[in-house]
């Protein structure tokens, strides 16, 4: 990928910086900037703010980096941690830095990337919301993410529990794929349920998605850091959808950044009495678009993706149109019909058994088979088909 710079290998961290630098990033410059940032965070932040006002922040910050410091043990640890975490780091102004970030003022001095970042011409949406999500919110987030992903739209979110997790989980195996923008360093196991082997973050990377972070590997998720990464989420997409959140939710921060960058903001209406409806309600009052279905979301994309694209993408899936595939494969016909009729609302297991009149044992076995095949998802509020059965 990159010819190892002999100069870099002599610096702290040995060969690590060469491994860590993304394609087109100079390991020596990266080492200098990161070591300076680690040694003097405040001074570096000032330099970066100054650099952002220049025409070429990348070059400006490189100048700050080279005037830096002696090789430090901290720099060595950073390089090692990134290297062991299979993380590549791109500097501002480098080709590996996502173009969307360069185009907005959201660009960080560096971006630590695990996995593959999508090209700029891939349409992308952010599906964000509260950690304290209701089953309704999670269901809607998954529905939107699944449909967007199936239409080839990339799904970006913050990797938190609740809405973020539902969106990532539903999108990770789709054509569109998903990117997690972390609010902490790559080395920090946060949120705990998503870190570790076989958990959400691993699955995202395995499915071809990406985990990105603007933090050093060990930096914990402080509130200001998490809010700051919301600007990256907003900058990385064409449309931001706020699914659920309290009146002081961080998703409002994301929406505000999106408005600053001129990016469309949609909100999903919820139960107006519920605490989780505060953020969408406020956004709708402030003039955000209404997102009542994946159609609304896709229609809001500037690329003009509509359901025609969806059908093409759907046709490319080997098992053909969803309804027939579903009925033919694992669910008893009566149960599939109940789920299809309720779509996109979930059906509780008890109601499904009662309405479909299928023996409980048979039904449960079929549900598992359908879950393993990725046709049905199960949440606290019941079962739901993964794909729109009417298409």
């Amino acid at each position, binding site marked *: 990928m990159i010819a190892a710079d002999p100069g870099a290998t002599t610096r702290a961290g040995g060969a690590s910086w060469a491994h860590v630098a993304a394609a087109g990033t100079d390991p020596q410059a990266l080492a200098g900037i990161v070591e300076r940032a680690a040694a003097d965070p405040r001074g570096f932040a000032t330099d970066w703010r100054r650099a952002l006002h220049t025409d070429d922040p990348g070059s400006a910050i490189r100048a700050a980096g080279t005037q830096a410091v002696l090789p430090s043990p901290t720099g060595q640890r950073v390089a090692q941690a990134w290297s062991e975490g299979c993380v590549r780091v791109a500097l501002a102004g480098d080709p590996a830095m996502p173009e969307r970030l360069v185009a907005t003022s959201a660009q960080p001095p560096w971006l630590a990337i695990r996995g593959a970042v999508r090209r700029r011409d891939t349409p992308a949406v952010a599906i964000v919301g509260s950690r304290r999500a209701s089953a309704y919110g999670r269901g809607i987030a998954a529905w939107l993410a699944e449909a967007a992903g199936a239409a080839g739209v990339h799904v970006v979110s913050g990797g938190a529990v609740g809405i973020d997790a539902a969106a990532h989980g539903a999108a990770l195996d789709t054509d569109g794929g998903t990117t997690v923008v972390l609010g902490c360093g790559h080395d920090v196991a946060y949120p705990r349920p998503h870190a570790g082997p076989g958990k959400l973050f691993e699955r995202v990377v395995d499915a071809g998605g990406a985990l990105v972070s603007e933090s050093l590997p060990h930096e914990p998720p402080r509130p200001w850091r998490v809010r700051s990464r919301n600007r990256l989420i907003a900058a990385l997409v064409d449309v931001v959808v706020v699914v659920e959140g309290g009146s002081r939710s961080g998703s409002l921060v994301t929406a505000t950044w999106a408005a600053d960058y001129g990016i469309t903001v949609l909100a999903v209406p919820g139960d107006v009495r519920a605490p989780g409806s505060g953020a969408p309600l406020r956004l709708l009052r402030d003039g955000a678009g209404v997102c009542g279905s994946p159609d609304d979301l896709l229609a809001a994309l500037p690329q003009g993706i509509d359901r025609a694209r969806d059908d093409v993408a759907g046709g490319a899936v080997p098992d053909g149109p969803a309804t027939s595939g579903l009925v033919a494969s694992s669910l008893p016909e009566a149960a599939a019909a109940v789920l299809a009729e309720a779509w996109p609302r979930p059906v509780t297991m*008890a109601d499904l058994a009662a309405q479909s009149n299928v023996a*409980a044992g048979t039904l449960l076995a079929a549900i598992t088979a359908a879950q393993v095949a990725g046709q049905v998802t199960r949440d606290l*509020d019941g079962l739901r088909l993964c794909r729109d059965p009417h298409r």
Partner: protein
Amino acid sequence: MSAGNSFTVEVSAGPASDTSSRVLARVGAVALTGLAGAMVTAEAVVAGGLPQIRIVGLPDATVREAADRIRSACQQSAFSLPGAKVVVNLAPAGIRKVGPGFDLPIALAVLCAAGHIPPDRLDGIVAWGEVGLDGGVSPSAGTLPVATAARRNGAGRLMVASQALAEAALVAGLDVVGVDSLRDAVAVAAGHRSGARPGPVAVSHSPHGPDLAAVRGQHVARRCLELAAVGGHHMLMVGPPGCGKSMLARRLPSILPPLAHEEALEVAAIRSIMGERVRLDLRPPFRDPHHATSTAGLIGGGSGVARPGEVSRAHRGVLFLDEVLETPRATLDALREPLETGRVVLVRSQSRVTYPAAVQLVAAANPCPCGRAGAAGRPCTCRPDQVARHRSRLSGPLLDRIDLHLAMEPVSQDVLVGPSSGESSDVVAARVVAARALATSRWSEFGAQPSGPRARMLTRDVSSDAVRASTGRPAQRRLARAIEAFGWSARAFDRCLRVARTIADVDGRDRVEPADVDEAVAHRVDLDGPS
């Protein structure tokens, strides 16, 4: 003091019927440590000194108090006591004697020493009962284990209060006689009267408690309950308040097979030492301790000799823990060993007792602190960390022992007002009996040994090797794939395979089909929800 030595000399010289001051009376009794009984002899002799009854041989306070009760009872019954000190020794003196059950043997020994009963008439008699100030004899806790110990140690005859006659008569091969008063006891012992004899052993096995027919809808929950009954699987129900969790749990005993005779005796023995009225009851016990129950209350405890806890009182039956996540985690973790071994060993400074505790655990919990997660209509107001803390109370090791996880939802309106369509407990119980017979015969064929002291082999308890050997490769491969897809730990494999085995048993099949495995996986809902 010097007189003490001369008594033993007199004893070896044989019974002396002429003079009351030289009689060494001996009556059998039993010192209970938990359920285990050790034979004790109450020896009495009239010694020199001021008139009193003195009890030695490590009596506890209740036994020491027997002296006053017996003195009064003798007066009320018009038995004269010697005008000198009567020394009663409970031999061997190294074992602690507890409980008013020692009243009757001590009274008989004292009366024998006083010359009211010929000493040879007391040979081989074991007595157990409490004596009142009026001379009446009433039952004392622990009659059944006392009878068992007496039988095992070759006692010929057991004298108890006539109210405890039926209880003592549960032990076969023992001559049991019931008495109502001290006069009665003396007459029976002396052979003037035959005393009350036990009638035929009354067995109650009629189905009790609420019937399953009252459960509307809930087909999945019913299925889960039936599997629990067949395999003896522990079960966890998660659902919002009012969805019928405890209603369902209370109906589990009604579909469990009746207890075997020996099992019913074990249950009766626990009831007996708790001082409850004991009958031979073939219905599995059902215990539902409050969630604020202490660790000692749940697994047993107390100083001196530990008493059985709820887990032992539910032995061979169902232990229902409602609101299980409100119970402190340390208390729940104390359940792990009983669930593993089927018994509780409680060690105290003066004793080490073992109580049986082969229970089927049924636990119920709300999905989150406010209880509304997943309920349609009302939104849940809990923070994610509150929910996480709520759920973490059920520790991993305990959760791993629970095979069936049932997510319950509130029943919809039309099901509530519609006709009750479910099967009754009798119908389900018949299927359970048949399926259990299938499982039991298979496990004995496999030579599978249940861990712990258990009469029956349940699919819950057989070794995992036996479970694997009895399920085919295709089913196991299917399970491995499903577990990978759900991201579960390898520990789920064994539990799911057991449930799949039970499912095949319920459907009367010897082969475990891939569909059985699929259903078993659906019975293990992830408490943490998606991802």
